[in-house]
């Protein structure tokens, strides 16, 4: 009874308000705002992450300028604290995580032979929510004057220094609110992608036929699913402390500041694997392709990823060896940390074994992938030296740590993600980035990287502390700091060369009439190459039957009677050309964007004025209602990429919720 009534009143509302029809078409900028296509969402994630990468990079250059000489006075101590804080927050939450999300969104459905993710509108919401959080966090740089209200208590934000008493301006509020918002985005996305992988794989694609990248992304989503609630709790408590004078971290009222540290690092250490595992997956796709061999020890690669995923939860307190938590805890976490090096080492060795006796083609993606193997090894080795708890009391909070995690996050995660950009660029856009520029930018970036972060090992061992705004000439840190600063600008040149490559490759491609590079430009192995480039909106023209790991490669190559590998078919013959226009796809929707904007307004409202938050709540609740009440699309109409049909108001009988 009530259902019928609900349907009637909803359809009445739909008639009264035209907005309850769904947006149409897949051309023009508006279609990007309302898209629910996982590929477009992936591309927007990538573009946003690249933008934030430039912001975070600029911040890094200011850090390096300030530290280039003793008694630096480029930026003051206060600004310096804000800059290094927002640099860390930006690079972790707004660059590496969304860049990995870009690959997860774009590739996961393609790699498992699905049409889209399980919940396309939720997927769009994840992106807008992430962008809302990113914009909010980044706006702290200039709101109320440059660096006047920027978070300045470090990305780790230890209590009680993050309290109102010690950080009275609104910076830490931005941190607490902004990260909760990006957290919602990641959490929603994690659920979405887990359901996608578990439920939407092509016929015959058992879990152990999934590409390594899909596996690593799946593990990453599980880590996100369990880690984000922990940081959310911590941020929630912090927000109440700062905005409404609760006492969770108020030592004067009996709080123990170590509470924040435990909460932060229970999230923070799995976060490290959240950052690195997608890059491991990317490397595991690139190296086999350009070695012309399958990945060595597939099951061990997957198992070591799972092992990292589990062990990653038992090592968080190695960030707290000097916090005074007692020798027994220190001993336990020292040992657990030591052994997490084992599965990581297994990965490195498997990559080397994949290259062994392969036919290695050093294209740009391959250079980046091998760069990861080489650079991550350095970060891994220095990581083991941190597990030696007594020695860590000398190294922690020095530049040795800064060196270590930049070798892991830049040398591991970012180089891997950049390799991924070059590798899957033709799939996403239909043309390759120029190889010469690509290789040149790689080498410049790699050399700059090593000159920037290599010397930091030495500086750290020579006793230079982290997060110090300057140092004295008599401390003997000047030489290597100058080297590092020069190196950082070399990285900047490398990044500029990458951007120029994107620009000029695109321009050249447009000039010659936008030819497609073909479905499989690298002679690769995964299902994502079994469709046209750029991948059509509906991904595949028909369902794919998967019979083995590396299905696509096995369709291209077979063995002759002598056992020699011969080509069975060319990629163009097997790959779907995207011509099937009779595929039903979910329609675009206004509401994910509106919901994201609503959350952003709530965020600003919490920081500045609750009336803004009230406005945000109106948008938020309205968006949820709109989301529920908007009509499902006409199931009888095709929605391929050239679908021009429109949604008539008569469709609203088919209202669905969810």
């Amino acid at each position, binding site marked *: 009874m009530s259902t019928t009534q609900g349907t009637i009143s909803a359809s009445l509302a739909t008639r009264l308000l035209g907005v309850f029809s769904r947006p149409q078409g897949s051309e023009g900028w508006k279609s990007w705002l309302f898209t629910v296509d996982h590929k477009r969402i992936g591309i927007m994630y990538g573009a946003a992450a690249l933008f934030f990468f430039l912001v975070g990079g600029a911040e890094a250059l200011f850090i390096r300028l300030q530290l280039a000489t003793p008694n630096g006075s480029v930026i*003051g101590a206060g600004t310096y604290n804000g800059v290094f804080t927002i640099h860390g927050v930006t690079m972790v939450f707004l660059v590496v995580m969304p860049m990995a999300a870009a690959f997860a969104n774009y590739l996961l459905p393609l790699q498992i032979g699905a049409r889209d993710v399980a919940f396309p509108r939720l997927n769009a919401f994840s992106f807008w929510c992430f962008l809302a959080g990113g914009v909010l966090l980044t706006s702290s740089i200039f709101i109320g004057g440059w660096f006047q209200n920027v978070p300045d208590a470090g990305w780790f934000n230890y209590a009680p220094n993050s309290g109102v008493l010690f950080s009275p301006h609104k910076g830490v509020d931005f941190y607490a609110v902004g990260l909760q918002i990006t957290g919602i985005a990641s959490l929603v996305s994690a659920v979405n992608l887990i359901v996608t992988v578990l439920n939407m794989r092509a016929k015959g694609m058992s879990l152990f036929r999934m590409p390594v990248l899909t596996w690593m992304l799946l593990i990453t989503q599980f880590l996100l699913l369990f880690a984000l609630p922990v940081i959310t709790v911590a941020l929630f408590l912090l927000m109440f402390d700062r905005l409404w004078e609760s006492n969770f971290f108020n030592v004067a009222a009996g709080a123990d500041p170590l509470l924040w540290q435990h909460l932060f690092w229970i999230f923070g250490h799995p976060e490290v694997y959240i950052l690195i595992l997608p890059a491991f997956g990317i490397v595991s796709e690139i190296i086999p392709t350009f070695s012309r061999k399958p990945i060595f020890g597939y099951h*061990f690669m997957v198992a070591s990823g799972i092992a990292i995923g589990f062990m990653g939860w038992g090592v968080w307190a190695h960030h707290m060896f000097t916090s005074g938590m007692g020798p027994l805890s220190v*001993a336990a976490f020292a040992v657990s940390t030591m052994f997490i090096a084992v599965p990581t080492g297994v990965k490195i060795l498997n990559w080397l074994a994949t290259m062994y006796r392969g036919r290695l083609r050093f294209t740009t993606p391959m250079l980046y992938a091998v760069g990861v193997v080489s650079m991550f*090894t350095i970060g891994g080795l220095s990581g083991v030296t941190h597990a030696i708890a007594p020695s860590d009391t*000398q190294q922690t909070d020095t530049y040795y740590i800064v060196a270590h995690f930049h070798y892991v996050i830049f040398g591991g995660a970012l180089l891997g993600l950049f390799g991924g950009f070059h590798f899957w660029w033709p799939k996403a856009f239909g043309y390759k980035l120029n190889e010469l520029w690509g290789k040149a930018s790689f080498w410049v970036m790699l050399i700059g990287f090593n000159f920037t972060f290599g010397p930091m090992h030495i500086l750290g061992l020579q006793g230079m502390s982290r997060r110090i*705004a300057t140092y004295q000439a008599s401390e003997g*840190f000047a030489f290597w700091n100058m080297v590092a600063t020069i190196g950082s600008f070399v990285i900047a040149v490398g990044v500029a060369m990458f951007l120029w490559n994107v620009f000029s490759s695109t321009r050249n491609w447009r000039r*010659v009439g936008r*030819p497609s590079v073909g479905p499989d430009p690298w*002679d690769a192995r995964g299902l994502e190459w079994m469709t046209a480039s750029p991948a059509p909106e509906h991904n595949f023209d028909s369902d794919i039957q998967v019979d083995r790991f590396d299905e696509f490669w096995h369709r291209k190559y077979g063995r002759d009677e002598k056992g020699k590998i011969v080509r069975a078919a060319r990629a163009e013959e097997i790959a779907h050309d995207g011509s099937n226009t009779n595929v039903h796809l979910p329609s675009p929707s206004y509401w994910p964007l509106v919901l994201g904007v609503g959350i952003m307004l709530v965020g600003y409202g919490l920081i500045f004025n609750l009336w803004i938050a009230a406005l945000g709540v109106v948008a938020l609740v309205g968006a949820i209602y709109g989301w529920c009440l908007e009509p499902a699309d006409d199931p009888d109409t095709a929605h391929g990429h050239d679908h021009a049909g429109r949604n008539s108001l008569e469709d609203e009988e088919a209202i669905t919720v969810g």
Partner: protein
Amino acid sequence: MGDANKRRDVYKSNYITKLGEREVSRNLKALVWLSSLLVVTGAIALIVVAIVLDDNHPLSTLSPVGRQGRDIAALINPIFIVAGVIFFLVQGAVLALWWRYRVSGSESGDGEFGYYEDGEFPEQIHGNNRVEIGWTLVPTVLLAVISVFTLITLFALDDVEASDEDMVVTVVGQQWWWEYQYHLDGNTSTPPDIVTANELVIPVGVDVPLDIKSRDVIHSFWIPKLNGKRDAVPGRAHDWVIQSEETGRFRGQCTEFCGLAHGYMKMVAVVLTKQEFAQWRDNQITSADMPQEGTAAHEGWQVFSQQCASCHVVNGITSATNRGGSGTEADTWDIYRELSGNDAGAYLSQDTLVAGAAPNLTHLMTRSTFAGSWYDLYLNADSHLNYLDLPENGILNRVELEKWIHNAPERKPAAADELRGMPARSSLSPQDIDNLVAFMSTLD
């Protein structure tokens, strides 16, 4: 339509004529190989030089002189070597695989279109369980061995060797300087016998137990040449121990980010012979004398009592009246008992930032540095001048001291308007400052 095809052909042929470019790129490759080899070798050589020249690094962890520091170095140095070997093995393997199995440029057909060629395939090896198990077990065993040594050292570092000194020093971090409260009888529940700032003076060869606390945010106490660091966490008291096998001055740095002037929060451990230490201790126990009336020092005291004594204590002279209290003469130590007892109440909120929350200046002139050890108090302190002779033979860094008194936030970042750090005293005349310095010069 045909136009587009034509353009595409032109584009393709352009690419093919780029074959010449490939020759260039092959030469380039050789160049890159050579230069990268040079770079790597050069870098390693530079690192070796850096370590050899380590003398110039007063905060270096690589040349410890403390027992604990040496134990740590003895543990980590062999591990550095093992890590170095693995580093060279892996990087060597990467380069060797690259060199041995690479396919040359023309064969790799890196065109913009139609990428692949149907060349030979290598053997399609999917894996090898024995190899996998092998390279899982070998590092596991290696790490197990390392963890045994780690645990042995870890627990050994907590030991305090007995000595004839009972002394325990309570170390209190505060934005942005360190206070040391000496309990000569080792009983931290009674008022300290000596209260000093920034420079921790200890006798050589003695394990000095530290009791590390904080009044505001988390700091970390670290004298790299003597021992690792230990956080100073408000509301908690952390045991730590410090020892030096050699006399000398060893610099330290707060190493937990503690807000605005974190980088400027330094300290020094001064290691004296046992005799010198006894001499230093006997002097520190004494109170200051009121300067004689009519002298510049006495004029300075007048200024001090109005401008400085609401935060700074000089034992024997400053009193409760100076901190806006009830006006009754109070034992200086009461203030400390109030502010930095051994309970969680050691935490200072904004409301309680009163006298005693700034460095005790009773024996200011016996220290070689001031302002959180950021500035030298004596211009010749780094020469071979004996630490105990500083008040007598040191050349006072008068210019910097006067600037500091006049406008401290300009000389070192501080949030003085939030009562964190020393506020400016711009209203003081040059005469006032001269008198103040005259008064301070009596505090030896």
